[in-house]
């Protein structure tokens, strides 16, 4: 399979109590298209830091990240976030004064990718695909359950028509049944729609359902 994201010699550290803490050490790894990855690791291993770096929310101290062969620093982090990736968070990160459909449309309004003109209809269809019917799609997001909100967040991540989706503990606040439901959605996105899904999790249940488990330990990524 073709590579979608390549990490080369990524280093990241920060000063903590006067001492430099090295989180990522010459980390290199390649993610391929159409696969569902889970990144595992003990607490404090730097999973979230790694996710924020490869999602363009933060910058590494050294090393290169290539998206579809292009250095993301050259693409520009704003543009990279806008057009090439999307992120699903544990807390869903939906905007409370917008409806579910409007939250989905939010991603469409920012991306430069080609989106059909009838954006509201696209939003309804995306939400319906994840079990949010139209009557619920027009509700304010805080009137939806946690599982529904996470499905809205996943629908939003697809709205900008990107191929690489990151998720940080996406099922952390959900019950087991909903967790399985969400993971199945990720698998479907990877296998049926060719999306690359990279999920940071500490849940074995989630990682066991992924195509590739990757362990972050001592600042390096290794297949697990």
């Amino acid at each position: 399979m073709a590579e979608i994201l390549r990490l080369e010699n990524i280093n990241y550290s920060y000063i903590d109590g006067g001492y430099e803490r090295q989180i990522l050490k010459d980390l290199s790894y390649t993610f391929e298209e159409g696969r569902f990855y889970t990144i595992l690791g003990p607490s404090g291993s730097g999973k979230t830091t790694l996710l924020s770096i490869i999602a363009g929310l933060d910058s590494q101290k050294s090393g290169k990240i290539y998206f579809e062969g292009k250095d993301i620093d050259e693409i520009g982090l704003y543009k990279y976030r806008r057009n090439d990736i999307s992120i699903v968070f544990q807390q869903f990160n939906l905007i409370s004064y917008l409806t579910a459909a409007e939250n989905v449309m939010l991603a469409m309004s920012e991306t430069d990718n080609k989106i059909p003109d009838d954006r509201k209809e696209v939003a309804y269809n995306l939400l319906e695909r994840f079990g949010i019917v139209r009557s619920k799609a027009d509700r304010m997001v805080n009137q939806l359950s946690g599982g529904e909100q996470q499905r809205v967040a996943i629908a939003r991540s697809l709205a900008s028509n990107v191929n690489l989706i990151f998720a940080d503990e996406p099922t952390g606040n959900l019950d087991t049944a909903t967790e399985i439901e969400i993971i199945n959605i990720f698998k479907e996105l990877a296998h049926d729609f060719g999306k690359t899904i990279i999920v940071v999790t500490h849940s074995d249940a989630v990682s066991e359902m992924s195509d590739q488990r990757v362990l972050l330990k001592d600042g390096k990524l290794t297949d697990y």
Partner: protein
Amino acid sequence: MNFINRAFKNVTRRLSKTILLTLTFFLIGNLVIVGLGISKASESAKILTRQKMRAVVTYMLDYDKIWQYADTIEDEDELNKFYEDYPRIKLEDVTAFLADERVKTANALSTNMWYSDHENSLDFVHLNNEAEKNMDSNGQACWMLEDGTQQCEDYKEPMFLARSNMFPSMIEFEDGDYEVTQGRFYNQSEINNADFVCLISENLAAANGLSIGDTIRLASNYNSPFMKEMGVTEEDITSEFEIIGIYDHHHPITPDNSNYDYCYPYENPDNMILMPTTTVYAANLTLNQKNFDYYAAMYAGQEGWEYYDDESNRPSMENMEKNNYIDNVVLLLSDPLEVDKFADDYKDSLGQFARLDLNNDEFNKLAKPLDTLSMYANFIVRLVVINAIVIITLVTALTLKNREYEIGVLLSVGASKFKVVAQFFVELALVAILGFTLSVVSGSLIARRIGNTVLEYQITASDLEEGYSYRDDDYFSIWETDYTEDISMEDLISEYEVTVSPALIAEIYVLGLGIVLISVIIPSFMIMRYNPKKILMNQN
């Protein structure tokens, strides 16, 4: 779902916050409208009143400066020389003013009393009042000679008044006070050539059956025994003038005038004859030359009479400007509102001893309560604007903390920080427009009420509540050439009306948006420092 849509939805769906902010802008709007409304009304009242006044500027000698300068001269000869060449208004300066397109005309007027010729060929317009009855009393004018003896002459009242100008028009005609009903006014060529032309009033023309092209004979003086002693003949003082214009004036003297019975014929405006100043000078030239020759012969070589030893002082058409002293010229401008700027434009190019008097001292005095009102109103507006900026800035900055999460989400989907700031601006602008729109209605009512109350207080405090008028309308005077308008406090107050005009509304909206724009600056810096990773990861 662009930033404008998001802003609109935020405003419409977070109603409690929107209502509170709208209320804030509503209160700010009311205060601003009150301040601006009163300030504009004050300015507008001044402008409208000023527009009603004549746009006259007097170009005159500055006697304070002349005296101050003279005091600095210690050498007596130098001081005498200064007085011999006493400062004067030069015609070339006035000609330069007239070249300015803002100047309509200039009055450098002279008045002389005239007589009919010795055959009384021209009759004056009669008022049939007490003064005319006393004219035939064969009165005498007497004075004491150096040797203590009294000398008397028969005294004859003049009948006409020659009003002459150095320029080919008069303010009275430009302003419509006088009107040429037949013929024309004298022109520059006739002034330069000292042609014997004149304009007479309609009533004088009717009383003597005169029309354009006719001539009248007038004597510049009554040929007294003393003048006969100087060798002056009737022919020397009598001149023939061609009537080139007949005019009407709008100031008839009537029995209603308090001084009607004391007006002599030459004080009746019907008996006023208009002619160039050069013509008057030419008509008196022979008389003045004989007068000069008489004294030159009598006091030749005597100390104190050196003036008559200098032949260049003998009156002639060439030294007319020297002998025809002018100390002020009144300029009429086309726009009363241009008066201040006109004076400002010329303040540095005036002669050392000249100044421009704007004739607006009375206006400025009466306008003082309005100025005070305007000053306080503007102060309130500034205070409110500064407070509004501080309050809105604080509210926005505090709101940011609650909206960090939303900002993080927007940044994570690739929205630029500029768009985030723009959304905040639009949200505040929408609320501001709503608040200001509501305040336009209430603000105009409040402004009118407060404006009138404060103005009344100001007038009372200034002790100007009584209408001030410096002219007794019942009193008539041909000598008075006061070009300033009679204005009163009532004139100013009648123009004072607090209204909320479309222009003011536009100004309030612009000001409101300005407040919002400035209020967003500090929160914008805060947003620029936001890091989406920190926000979102902290949330998680």
